[in-house]
């Protein structure tokens, strides 16, 4: 079975070029090849999962020397399960693609990156050391970029830019963390990391590397404050891509965080509390954003963020609870699994809406789902699931997470007070989830569109039979485990527990306590929906209907633009950083020029002064003594006449030598450094001179009209200033050229000095 592991990773990657090449010949064949690739992958993954579940062994595969350290794969229950989920999601979206993309361009490209990303994602989920995880994580980030940018509209490109920035910057920060982690632990293999971390004298030294690694994984998972790409990328990406991005690519980030939590920070309370706090903020913020959003896919994206927060809380509990983390671990696994399926179903529904209407705003699409009972059911089941209503799978996982949290509060350990606040937020967010899902459902399936309702109600085929089947599949997959947890959810979560280093622990899913938690959430929703959504987030449509009271109420976006962290914080920050660094570099360049020039001049001046001194020290005294000797022979009269003459001669020679340096410079300027031919007088100059010049010109014109009527000023300041600027620029260029010459002079001088010193 081990051979299945590399197959799962590399087969889709090799399949991708085949799909691309087929696509150049025939579109139909390409669609078949792409779907077949995903289906074969799914079949292989199922085989792997079956063999892992039946033999209770975890096959592993090592490829030594690949990428330096070599890569390691291993498939225990959890990893095989997630390879399977990936296969399922890719198969469903792959089959959905032909219908969705019917009118798109560049479908070959999409198919190519679709399969590449499948391989890379599987590489992440099957990895057995962080090095392998990172390699495939980076590949996945880049190959999923074309998904987001697929439509090539400015909005899509901007969102894709954000996505790439989070991926690349996050990736590099993670890499830095991995450097440090590898240095601290000596290994990145999961099991060895656990042992090395236990042996470590000072576990606190791992926190910095851990946080750095967290940046990249957290960014991909959509964790606050790195969630910025999520709400932007989803609305612009094609729906199948959104389903995958939110359903499974975010889970790769979670996988990385889980690895850190379980294998490095197993018992580190600080780490647990950090993740707990981040998870809590992510959970609440995501839900609030989803509540305020008026765009179908954006709401679903923010909802993903919120659910990731739930999963993070589960992860945090594993670190906080240490050995007794079974409930939290089961909850985490199940919620990851459930969320993948919810989002698959919901995004495919959203895709169906977009495919038919090419609109996503709730006001534009409302009422479209009326008289489409099939679609309503396919939307409703995952929506109920994600809201945690009993009898759907979301209820199981949320209850388990909740119990894990309560368990920690019960321990009364460090941070218990904070945890009880988190627990309240947990319940409220559960209610908010139900609220925004109700908002979507009511808008889409209950309300009527003010103008186009008749058109919407017409019985036109909106989805092919294959599409219907694909939509039904996730809806069923979230319902069956909710009704029969003991047969489905329990064995799966038990099989996945070894990865989390936890032991199976039986639990009564439908205990009174759990039902009460769900009931509390429903109460919150019962309060929130009428008050917040119908009251605060809807307003009479003033624009179209004037100020009439009877104007229909529409959904309005009341979220503050100021609160967009990307536009108010990250982009200015990065721009500022880049500009700052750029200015620094520019300043250094200037400084260099400024420094070198005086150095060069100094060297030249030294040479001249040296010659002068040579003259004064040796020649003059020599001349003097000769002259004195002469003078002693000659009589006093001649002495008086000759001496000043000799002195003058000496000075003159000195001056000649002195100015010969100037002549040399002049000569060099005429030959090697010849200035360019004088240009015609410029009339515009640069921006500054033009602005100042035209200002002065205007003053002159004004003065000419008023004060100097008889003798007007004729100077054109624009051209004067432009000429000045040109001059200054020319001079600075000349200086810059001299620098290299001065460097040469410096080297020669240095050699002479060295010669003198060593002699």
């Amino acid at each position, binding site marked *: 079975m081990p051979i299945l592991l590399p197959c799962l990773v590399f087969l889709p990657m090799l399949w991708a070029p085949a799909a691309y090449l087929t696509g150049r010949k025939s579109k139909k064949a390409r669609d078949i090849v792409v779907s077949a690739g995903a289906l074969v992958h799914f079949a292989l993954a199922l085989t792997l999962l079956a063999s892992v579940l039946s033999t209770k062994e975890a096959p592993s595969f090592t490829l*030594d*020397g*690949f*990428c*330096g*350290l070599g890569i390691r794969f291993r498939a225990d229950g959890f990893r095989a399960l997630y390879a399977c989920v990936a296969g399922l999601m890719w198969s469903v979206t792959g089959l959905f693609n032909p219908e969705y993309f019917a009118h798109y361009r560049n479908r070959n490209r999409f198919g190519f990156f679709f399969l590449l990303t499948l391989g890379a994602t599987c590489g992440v989920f099957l990895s057995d050391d962080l090095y392998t995880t*990172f*390699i495939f994580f*980076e*590949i996945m980030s*880049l190959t999923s*970029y*074309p998904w987001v*940018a697929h439509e*090539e509209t400015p909005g899509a*490109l901007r969102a*894709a830019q954000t996505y*790439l920035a989070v991926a*690349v*910057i996050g990736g*590099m*920060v993670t*890499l*830095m963390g991995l*450097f*440090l982690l*590898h*240095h601290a632990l000596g290994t990145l293999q999961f099991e060895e990391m656990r042992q090395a971390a236990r042996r470590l004298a000072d576990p606190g030294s791992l926190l910095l590397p851990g946080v750095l690694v967290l940046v990249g994984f957290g960014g991909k998972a959509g964790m606050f404050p790195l969630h910025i790409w999520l709400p932007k990328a989803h609305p612009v990406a094609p729906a199948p891509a959104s389903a995958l991005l939110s359903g499974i690519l975010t889970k790769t980030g979670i996988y990385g965080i889980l690895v850190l939590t379980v294998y490095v920070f197993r018992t580190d309370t600080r780490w647990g509390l950090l993740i707990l706090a981040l998870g809590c903020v992510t959970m609440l913020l995501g839900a609030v954003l989803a509540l305020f959003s008026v765009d179908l896919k954006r709401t679903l994206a923010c909802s993903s963020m919120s659910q990731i927060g739930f999963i993070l809380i589960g992860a945090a509990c594993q670190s906080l609870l240490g050995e007794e983390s079974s409930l939290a671990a089961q909850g985490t696994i199940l919620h990851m699994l459930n969320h993948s399926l919810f989002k698959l179903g919901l995004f495919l529904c959203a895709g169906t809406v977009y495919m038919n209407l090419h609109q996503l705003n709730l006001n534009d699409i409302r009422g479209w789902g009326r008289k489409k009972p099939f679609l309503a059911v396919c939307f409703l089941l995952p929506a109920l699931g994600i809201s945690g209503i009993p009898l759907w799978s979301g209820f199981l996982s949320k209850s388990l997470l909740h119990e894990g949290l309560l368990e920690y509060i019960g321990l009364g350990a460090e941070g218990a007070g904070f945890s009880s606040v988190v627990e309240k937020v947990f319940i409220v967010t559960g209610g908010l989830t139900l609220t925004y899902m109700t908002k979507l459902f009511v808008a889409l399936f209950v309300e009527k569109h003010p103008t186009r309702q008749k058109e919407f109600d017409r019985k036109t085929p909106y989805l092919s039979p294959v599409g219907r089947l694909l939509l039904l599949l996730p809806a069923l997959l979230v319902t069956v485990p909710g009704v029969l947890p003991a047969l489905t959810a329990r064995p799966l979560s038990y099989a996945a527990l070894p990865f989390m280093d936890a032991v199976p622990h039986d639990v009564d899913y439908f205990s009174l306590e759990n039902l009460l938690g769900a009931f509390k959430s429903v109460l919150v929703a019962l309060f929130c929906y009428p008050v917040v959504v119908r009251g605060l987030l809807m307003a009479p449509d003033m624009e179209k209907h004037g100020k009439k009271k009877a104007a229909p109420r529409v959904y309005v976006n009341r979220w503050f633009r100021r609160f967009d962290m990307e536009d108010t914080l990250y982009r200015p920050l990065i721009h500022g950083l*880049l500009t700052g*660094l*750029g200015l*620094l*570099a*520019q300043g*250094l360049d200037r400084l*260099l020029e400024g420094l070198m020039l005086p150095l060069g001049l100094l060297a030249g001046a030294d040479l001249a002064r040296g010659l002068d001194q040579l003259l004064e020290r040796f020649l003059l005294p020599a001349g003097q003594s000769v002259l004195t000797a002469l003078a002693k022979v000659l009589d006093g009269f001649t002495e008086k006449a000759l001496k000043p003459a000799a002195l003058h001669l000496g000075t003159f020679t000195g001056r000649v030598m002195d100015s010969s340096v100037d002549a040399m410079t002049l000569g060099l300027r005429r030959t*090697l*450094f010849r200035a*360019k031919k004088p240009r015609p007088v410029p009339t515009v100059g640069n921006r500054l001179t033009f602005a100042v010049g035209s200002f002065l010109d205007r003053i002159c014109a004004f003065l000419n009209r008023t004060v100097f009527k008889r003798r007007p000023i004729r100077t054109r300041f624009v051209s004067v200033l432009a000429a000045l600027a040109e001059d200054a620029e020319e001079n600075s260029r000349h200086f810059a*050229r001299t*620098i*290299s*010459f001065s*460097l*040469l002079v*410096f*080297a*020669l001088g*240095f*050699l002479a000095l*060295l010669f003198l010193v060593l002699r």
Partner: protein
Amino acid sequence: MLLLITVLLPILCGALLPAFRFKNRRLREGYVLFSVLLTSALVFLCCFTTRGNVTFSFLHFTQKITCSLHLDDLGRVFTCMIAFLWPLASLYAFEYMEHEGRQNSFFAWYTLAFGITLGISMAGDVVTLYLFYELLTLVTLPLVMHGMGKERVAAGLKYLYYSLFGAGLAFAGIMLVLAYGETSAFVPGGVLRGLDESRVPLMRLGYLLVFVGMGVKAAVFPFHGWLVSASAAPTPVTALLHAVAVVKAGVFGLIRLTWFSFGPDLLRDSFAQWIPFALAAFTILYGSVNAVRETHFKRRLVYSTISNLSYILLGTVMLTPRGLEGAMLHMVYHAFMKITLFGVCGTVQIRAGLTEVSQWHGLARRMPLCMALFVPSALAMTGIPPLDGFHSKWTLAMGALETGGPPAVVGCAVLALSAVLTAVYLLVPAFHAFFSVPAGPSPQDRLDPSLQMLLPLSVWTLTTLVLSFSYAAFMPFVSSIVRSVIR
């Protein structure tokens, strides 16, 4: 003896080229290609038929001052890289230089420079190294000044002055090695083991001089100015000489002098290690930042070269085995990536007439093959796994961590930050080429160059990919070099 023939052959062929006064393009290209290929064949013959160290000494002035050629494993790596790149670069240059004219003189110097670079890579002692190092300056000067345009003459003079300045400083340092070293030949681990304690500071100062002197060729801040100006030269020159041969000769010379003359033991934990370390780390950032700032694509690549050369220098002066390993890997990997990038840049320049980065929007529609060849190298430069740039950066970072203390963190941080900046200055244009819509009217013509230009580009890209996935085969060889030096 074969070594000497190998070095002299291209020099001779290059010198003879003007004598033929080729009028026919085909004939000249045949002649150049033949001589270059013959030399490369000889190089491979030398490298692969011999094992261990081969020395051939051909001039004796005094006991210490001799000229000798020498081939060891480190030299083999550099020599093979040069011999592999040169014929392909010539092929690329044939088509490119159609637009420049005066090919006879150009290819004469181009072939000459091959011999001189081989001389540096096979130099057996400091005197020979210095000799060829000086010659390289003089031989490549006409290439920079080719066409004698005003900008190019100015750039050439700047190059000359900077190089002479550097050579002056390096000469001083080399004199010190000659004066106090056991021998002038290159010995793994250095020739200053028996150095008198009182001379240690002086020798460290000497190393600093050598670092700055050779650093001029390797474009270390603040002596990088010439490389930026020299980007005015024809692209084949910039691609081969200013991304590979000349600058790598500086780097290679430094590796030689650091590990084979001065020796790591002398330098470790002294100012002679930390000043070069700081300079290299700073240059990495400085080059990357300037590359981001620069909008002229060729100059952007030049700044990227400045930054990447300092990766190698940083690895060299870490004085740890991993650091040296990383330096050697990056020296080879970077050569292939950068020459591809320059090749694509030059192709875009002559085929589409585009020089600015902003003009790249939507370029992939017009030059799909060219852009497709650009992407792997750009990804590798950024250090995206599993491409080879990632291995070298990983190894370098591990080497930096081995030094311990603040330099370790500084080294890692610089590597990570520079990787982000690399993504900005290389990947962003690449993505714009593929996904953005060109501003204004977009011609629909196909501009991909002929096979003669595409062949070298594809071979280089392929080499990058092969190096990425054959790490396991390549690595033991590099490790054995490092082991021989560390002992």
